[in-house]
């Protein structure tokens, strides 16, 4: 069974010369739910942009990222984006259509869905995220939590096999975070979630990758990695409270 994601020695440099990624390697198997944590500036968002070919700007021939065993090249960008659903950090950046229905329909439309089929897919995606009936609503009238759900719906409507989320809980109230966790637990796709919210990650992800300074410094069971106090503090993080009262042995 081919792993869902293989990243081999990924490197990336910004325009001004700073190295964002300095040799990142890991694998994710189908169905896993993996958390990506690390201090600000560690390169998490940059790494995520590589998973659906948005970076590097010119796809290299020696691809360092393989999705379902296939390297990402210029030729298969469209196919990769069908399989990898990327949810960005700022909902306002990706909800660019006037109404919720139009925005959720954007992805499936690109894939050729039309008419009844399209409407059905939109409705299914909206129902999945708990926004049934929100179709005709204008985006700028939505609450922040509803916007985040709408973003997720827009990506889920494309039925990706790999779901990648960048800071999905920032600006969410505790109820919103709980509901998002339940939502994600109900989605069978492989998941990679970048987040600062360690408490939330522990409850959702079985595995955690710690990124710092553009390299992977830890990769293992969430309960073990996040419980390592020295490791956490050394990389600008901390042990989540929920683990301080949890004795795995």
């Amino acid at each position, binding site marked *: 069974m081919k792993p869902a994601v293989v990243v081999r020695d990924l490197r990336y440099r910004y325009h001004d010369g700073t190295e964002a990624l300095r040799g990142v390697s890991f694998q994710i198997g189908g169905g896993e739910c993996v958390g990506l944590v690390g201090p600000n500036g560690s390169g998490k968002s940059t790494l995520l*942009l590589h998973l*659906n070919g*948005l970076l590097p700007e010119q796809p290299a021939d020696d691809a360092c990222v393989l999705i379902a065993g296939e390297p990402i090249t210029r030729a298969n960008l*469209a196919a990769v*984006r*069908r399989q990898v*659903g*990327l949810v*960005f950090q*700022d909902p*306002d*950046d*990706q*909800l*660019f*259509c*006037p*109404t919720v229905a*139009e925005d959720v329909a*954007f*992805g499936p439309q*690109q*894939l050729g869905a039309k008419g009844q089929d399209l409407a059905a897919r939109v409705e299914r995606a909206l129902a999945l995220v708990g926004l049934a009936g929100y179709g005709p609503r*204008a*985006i*700028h*009238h939505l609450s922040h939590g509803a916007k985040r759900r709408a973003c997720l719906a*827009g*990506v889920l409507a*494309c039925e990706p096999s790999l779901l990648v989320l960048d800071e999905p809980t920032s600006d969410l109230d505790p109820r919103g975070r709980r509901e998002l966790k339940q939502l994600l637990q109900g989605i069978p796709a492989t998941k990679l979630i970048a987040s600062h919210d360690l408490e939330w990650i522990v409850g959702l992800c079985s595995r955690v990758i710690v990124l710092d300074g553009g390299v992977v410094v830890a990769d293992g069971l969430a309960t073990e990695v996040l419980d390592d106090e020295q490791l956490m503090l050394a990389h600008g993080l901390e042990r989540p409270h929920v683990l301080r009262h949890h004795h795995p042995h």
Partner: protein
Amino acid sequence: MLKDWVGHQHGRRDGLIQRAPAGLKLAVAMAIIGSTVAAPGRGQPGLFFVGAAVLALVAVAARISPGFLVRRLLLLSPFVAGVILANALQPDFRARALVLTGRSALCLSTLIVLSSTTPFSQVLLVLRRAHVPALLITTLTLMHRYLFVLAEEEQRMRRARASRTLVATRRLHWRVLGTVVGHLFLRASERAERIYDAMCARGWQ
């Protein structure tokens, strides 16, 4: 003024007028405005009053607050005053002034009723069916989507700057405002890049 409009559109209540098809409303508005503008010379005062009465009825049916309407109509006064002044020496200026005021007030009211009862996305649909180029439609759509977002960003940036403006010279103020506007453009530019990424992420070619 923007807040006035935002509140006005937020509070757009459902009604008979609101539910009418956008194309029809646009066509009616164009007909009213077109005939008012094209009406010759002094025009027919009778027709004018009929038009005004119809419009008033529609405005009431659409539940547009009369205060809002009057406030917007008052904004016409500098233009009207300017033209009146420029023509003060003309023999029939009083009649012309009346005609001008009446016409512009009627047309402006029509436009206000139209925009208050028609969501912009529906207007865009009408434009798309009228074969307006896709590039323009996309630009209009994105502008409409993000103008409130950017207006809020500008407000936040200005407040942040104002909080740290301890010396009140006008020269400094203009520089600061220029910087705020400049940064607003930079943010808009970076947001545009992220939007492009988001569009590509969902399959856009």
